[in-house]
């Protein structure tokens, strides 16, 4: 299908973009790669009065090494990040997760921040951000603020972004001296996951485990490698799992119980 009519603006600077957001608020949508937004517009699941195309704002098209954190600007595509030479060394969890994000062709245009903005409960980048303890940089005419991933994504397709705020960047902490692993179960490669699991483990067996696809946002828990299977099983009951056309809650719990320990074992192997 074709989208309903909308106005279009292509600002050259962040200031112009947040000025438009201040003026139009909820009626405006940010267009970066458009790989989540345009399908929804084409299917007329959503409509917008104004699209603010930030894909040519040069200041947002940067991967900045801040030392203990890597800041990824809102115009950086998923494939640009995958091609970043230091990705495997500094952000190994993202390096493992990105190949699961959509397809080669959509990663060429889809942005890292766009996935975070869309906030699908089973999408890979928000899960990686939550497990790493990353953050989201929001800019508005009022100023800027940095929100922890935990505080940012609130529920299915729902975030703490105010209507006049632009997601200018996301920040991933550099992971060093730890093992990481990512895996997921999907109907077909490139689909949104039914269940996605990410783990960060240190050499002593302390694990940060995250799961997408159980509840409305990524769920994260600290546990130890010893007795992980029992802890994951109890956690699965606690989370319950949502019901949709792809999987029942029982199936989601079952996948988490099987995939969780496997991902932890791989992260521990990497840590060793």
């Amino acid at each position, binding site marked *: *299908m*074709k*989208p*309903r*009519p*909308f*106005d*279009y*603006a*292509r*600002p*050259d600077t962040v200031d*112009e973009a947040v000025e438009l957001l201040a003026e139009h608020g909820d009626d405006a949508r940010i*267009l970066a790669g*458009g*790989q989540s937004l*345009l*399908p929804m*517009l*084409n*299917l007329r699941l959503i409509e917008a009065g104004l*699209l603010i*195309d930030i*894909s040519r704002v040069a200041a947002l098209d940067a991967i900045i090494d801040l030392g203990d954190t890597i800041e990824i600007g809102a115009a950086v595509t998923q494939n640009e990040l995958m091609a970043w030479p230091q990705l495997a060394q500094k952000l190994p969890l993202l390096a493992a997760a990105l*190949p699961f994000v*959509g*397809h*080669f*062709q*959509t990663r*060429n*245009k889809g942005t890292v921040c766009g996935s975070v903005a869309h906030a699908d409960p089973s999408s890979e980048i928000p899960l990686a951000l939550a497990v790493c303890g990353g953050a989201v940089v929001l800019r508005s005419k009022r100023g800027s603020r940095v929100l922890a991933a935990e505080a940012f994504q609130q529920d299915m397709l729902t975030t703490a972004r105010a209507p006049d705020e632009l997601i200018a960047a996301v920040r991933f902490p550099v992971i060093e001296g730890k093992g990481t692993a990512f895996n997921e179960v999907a109907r*077909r*490669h*490139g689909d949104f996951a039914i269940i996605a699991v990410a783990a960060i483990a240190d050499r002593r067996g302390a694990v940060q485990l995250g799961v997408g696809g159980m509840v409305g946002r990524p769920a994260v828990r600290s546990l130890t490698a010893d007795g992980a299977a029992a802890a994951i099983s109890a956690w699965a009951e606690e989370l319950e799992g949502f019901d949709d056309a792809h999987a029942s809650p029982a199936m989601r719990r079952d996948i988490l119980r099987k995939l969780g320990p496997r991902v932890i074992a791989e992260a521990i192997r990497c840590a060793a």
Partner: protein
Amino acid sequence: MRRITRDQRPRVSLTLNGRKLAAAAEPRTLLSDFLRQSLGATGTHVGCEHGICGACTVLIDGVAVRSCLTLAVQAEGRAVTTVEALAAPGGALNPLQQAFQNHHALQCGFCTPGILMSFTDFLARNPHPTEPEIRDVLSGHLCRCTGYTGIVNAVKEVAGGGA
């Protein structure tokens, strides 16, 4: 800053297969429709219009993207390459197209333009891919004639047996 209201149809210019062209477009006009209906480049096919099937894949500045998930105005000033650019002016197929013919990698041909453009980008970046890498790129396309094995074999031929 470029601004267009919904009732305006300004001229949008871009370079299509080396030629500078322009036509009127609304903000909501998809690049796929702009190419086919306004610029007459009907080699690009439109299947699902929500980014799943891959038939509409074209290159923008050399990078393979879904033209149905791109607004025409987003391609303004960019270099767009479509399947029409692949064969020589006299009609001789390029090596990738010839390999598709050799391996019966197309049946109805509806998905073929998009697949050719995806691999044009991918092979430029990675000239000797492994078979799993080829299959990963191909996973971004749907072929309803189930011709995947022939397509993989065709790409392997062009990739110099690197798989």
